[in-house]
């Protein structure tokens, strides 16, 4: 098997893919400015390091990688790669780079830069939170431990061709190359600024940084030499940081702000929804997020599957959705609905306290038991935990609520004998890339069930781990459907063992000012989170 994807094909796909914007790309005039606010400061714009809500999409606009996604969707497409080939066994990926890709400093981007950038991320000196994603590239162990300088699996064939050799077939590898951690940085600028590169980012993206006043504002300006003509649509984006979401919303209503980056604050949600002037500007979008209760399978009585199933049946999800003003949809499985592999016809455990009590009795716990429910102490999490507490009380489980700072809950989850139950709200899993495997390894697989890991249920099923590895070795795009089915099956098996009680999938609610245009999906982009800055446009210059 040999796969060849040419840019022409991608271009054709792009034109077919026209549901996105009412008018085609050529009709939208470039120009204008947009103001975006965030509550928290932008920590760094170094693609190897940035992993925040506010800098994720900014980095995507300043830098480019080999792969990206169709705007507003989870569909992969080549970015600075023109085409790619995957070997039959799925272990060799060869990319041809586009002509005319330039860094903001004017130098042409070459395959050497791609290699340098990924090796930099993996290098332990960089302290990148994303190093682990590149684990399938040959030579990763040596490079990540600092024993080798580079990755032996990356070869620069010529300035426009780069080859990756993997130690195992990896079906998620294209997604990995679309992560910020694989975005391309120019070596000379990294060396010039050293550890401060994150404050002086130079990339090859659609925008370049023109001003950064620490703690106040950042200004992005259109990169005139961007390889993708017609992108970005805006001339300038002004980011103002340190703005509370409530204040940002007031300023939007006052015409001073175009997009509140943190979305509509829950407290103002109903008010804005009922405001005739603004209700049509609200945008709702799914998130690759699931909120769940973990049950530590190594702590009695959660070692009994009946008990875990009983908890699943006890929780009244509809009531919890009311607590958060309906800003989510009820979940019955680990994957969120917008993720490939989601089992749409799966019913899950319904709300049935009667059956739950019976299951507890079957497990020999007819009189119930005492346990603890850990929760992060920021609103609305404790209120949700209280609802769960009442639901559990109804079937005889007395759960004491342990409300702690988020970092402390995470620490407790990473200890084998600490937290019997955790409500994941506020720290729940949001996928790094839109592939079903991303919800398994660290949070449900054996690899995550280690001290300091994220598998807070300490669930480790060797059979499922083997199945997961098998699914991830199915690189052939023709077998994508089969692979998806395998993953679906894995998650349904997980639900039989019920280490989690999935509760809801959060929806994002954001708003934009009337003067900013673009398809709604761009403002709740599943990958360019929270907003796809390159594609939205200013109506006042049209």
């Amino acid at each position: 098997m040999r796969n060849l994807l040419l840019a022409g094909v991608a271009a054709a796909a792009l034109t077919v893919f026209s549901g996105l914007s009412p008018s085609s790309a050529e009709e939208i005039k470039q120009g204008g400015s947009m103001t975006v606010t965030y509550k928290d400061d932008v920590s760094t714009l170094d693609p190897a390091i940035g992993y925040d809500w506010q800098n994720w999409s900014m980095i995507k606009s300043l830098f480019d990688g080999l792969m990206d996604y169709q705007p507003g969707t989870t569909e992969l497409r080549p970015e600075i790669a023109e085409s790619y080939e995957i070997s039959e066994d799925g272990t060799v990926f060869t990319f041809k780079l586009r002509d005319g890709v330039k860094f903001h400093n004017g130098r042409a981007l070459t395959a050497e830069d791609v290699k340098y950038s990924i090796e930099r991320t993996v290098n332990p000196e960089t302290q990148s939170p994303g190093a682990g994603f590149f684990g399938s590239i040959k030579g990763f162990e040596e490079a990540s431990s600092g024993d080798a300088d580079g990755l032996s699996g990356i070869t620069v064939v010529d300035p426009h061709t780069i080859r990756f050799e993997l130690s195992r077939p990896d079906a998620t590898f294209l997604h990995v190359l679309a992560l910020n951690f694989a975005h391309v940085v120019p070596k000379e600028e990294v060396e010039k600024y050293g550890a401060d590169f994150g404050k002086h980012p130079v990339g090859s993206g659609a925008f370049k940084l023109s001003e950064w006043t620490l703690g106040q504002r950042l200004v992005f300006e259109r990169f005139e030499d961007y390889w993708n003509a017609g992108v970005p649509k805006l001339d300038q984006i002004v980011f103002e940081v340190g703005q509370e979401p409530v204040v940002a919303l007031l300023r939007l209503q006052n015409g001073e702000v175009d997009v509140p980056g943190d979305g509509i604050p829950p407290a103002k949600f109903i008010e804005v929804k009922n405001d005739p002037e603004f209700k049509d500007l609200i945008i709702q979008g799914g998130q690759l997020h699931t909120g769940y209760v973990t049950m530590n399978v190594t702590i009695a009585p959660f070692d009994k599957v009946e008990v875990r199933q009983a908890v699943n049946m006890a929780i009244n999800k509809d009531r919890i959705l009311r607590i958060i003003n309906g800003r989510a949809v009820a979940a019955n499985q680990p994957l969120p609905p917008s993720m490939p592999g989601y089992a749409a016809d799966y019913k899950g455990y319904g709300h049935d306290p009667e059956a739950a009590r019976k299951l507890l009795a079957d497990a020999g716990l007819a009189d119930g038991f005492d346990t603890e429910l850990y929760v992060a102490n920021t609103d609305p999490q404790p209120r949700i935990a209280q609802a769960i507490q009442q639901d559990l009380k109804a079937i005889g489980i007395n759960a004491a609520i342990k409300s702690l700072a988020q970092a402390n809950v995470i620490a407790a989850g990473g200890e084998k004998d600490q937290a019997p139950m955790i409500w994941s709200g506020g720290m729940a899993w949001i996928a790094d890339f839109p592939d079903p495997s991303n919800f398994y390894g660290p949070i449900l697989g054996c690899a995550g069930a280690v001290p300091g890991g994220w598998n807070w249920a300490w669930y480790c099923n060797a059979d499922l781990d083997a199945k997961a590895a098998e699914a991830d070795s199915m690189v052939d795009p023709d077998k994508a459907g089969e692979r998806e089915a395998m993953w679906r099956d894995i998650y349904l098996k997980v639900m039989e063992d019920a280490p989690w009680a999935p509760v809801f999938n959060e929806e994002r609610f954001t708003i934009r000012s009337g003067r900013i245009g673009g398809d709604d999906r761009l403002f709740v982009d599943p990958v360019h989170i929270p907003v796809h800055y390159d594609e939205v446009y200013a109506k006042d210059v049209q």
Partner: protein
Amino acid sequence: MAAYIIRRLIQTALILLGISFVTFILLYLVPADPARQIAGRSATAETVENIREQLGLNLPFYEQYLRYLASLLQGDFGRSYLQKTEVSTLIAARLPASLLLMAGAIACELAFGLAMGIVAALRRGSHTDNALMITSFIGVSAPQFVIGILLLYVFAVKLGWFPIGGYGTFVHLVLPSVTLGFLGAGWYSRMMRSSLIDVLRQDYVRTARATGLSRAKVLFRHAMPNAILPIVAMIGIDIGLFMSGIVVVESVFGWPGIGQLAWQAIQRVDIPIIMGVTLVSACAIVLGNLLADLVTPLIDPRIKLR
């Protein structure tokens, strides 16, 4: 005088040393692991371990503390774990905004506090007095975020007189300063009122009036310098109050000062920033007190520094 200042400065250094130790040990005891915060949720155990090692977080407590002190003595506050920048750069970028806000707040609390106190003292027992004292009571008791949001709502959103948060021009400064200064104004008006009432009862005030001086002249030339004395001493102490107030006020108004920096760092266990801001604020508090002590003898020659 010089000996006094030197002695006080040495005390200051010792106080700061103590504060650095207490803060460091508290942060050390927090169960959250900074290495994991930096590494993020997708990191492998090796990555976390490697980061811990690079930052020296695997060392015993005393060694970590001594390392920190050693670089601190060279003026190095360390690098932020998450922002990957020198803490001194971050603080330097935000300190002017906080100092400006404090200056604005001091101006507000003096203007409002003294005016309210004087009027209340001169009209003692009247309705005006009662109304002013109730206002000051509200100022002292109301949480600053409530006052901030109310002011923001009324004067920025409804009336549109001031911008809704932000930083840059004089008009941006007004609402945050009033919010921060309102608490102090409450205290000052009460102090000014009682202190002025005391002074106005003194014989020399009656004598001054008897010599034919005008009421205003007596008030401002003779009574005020004595009445204001306890307040001057308070301003220095206020800096400490401000340091806790700016965390709230800066976050309500989006004011880019060190309070906001501290708040964001605390949420993410960015220890070097928390340490840096704590020490800078502690320094400001101690120096504020020192300043207050140094100014008092200039106003009241009866007080001598020893």
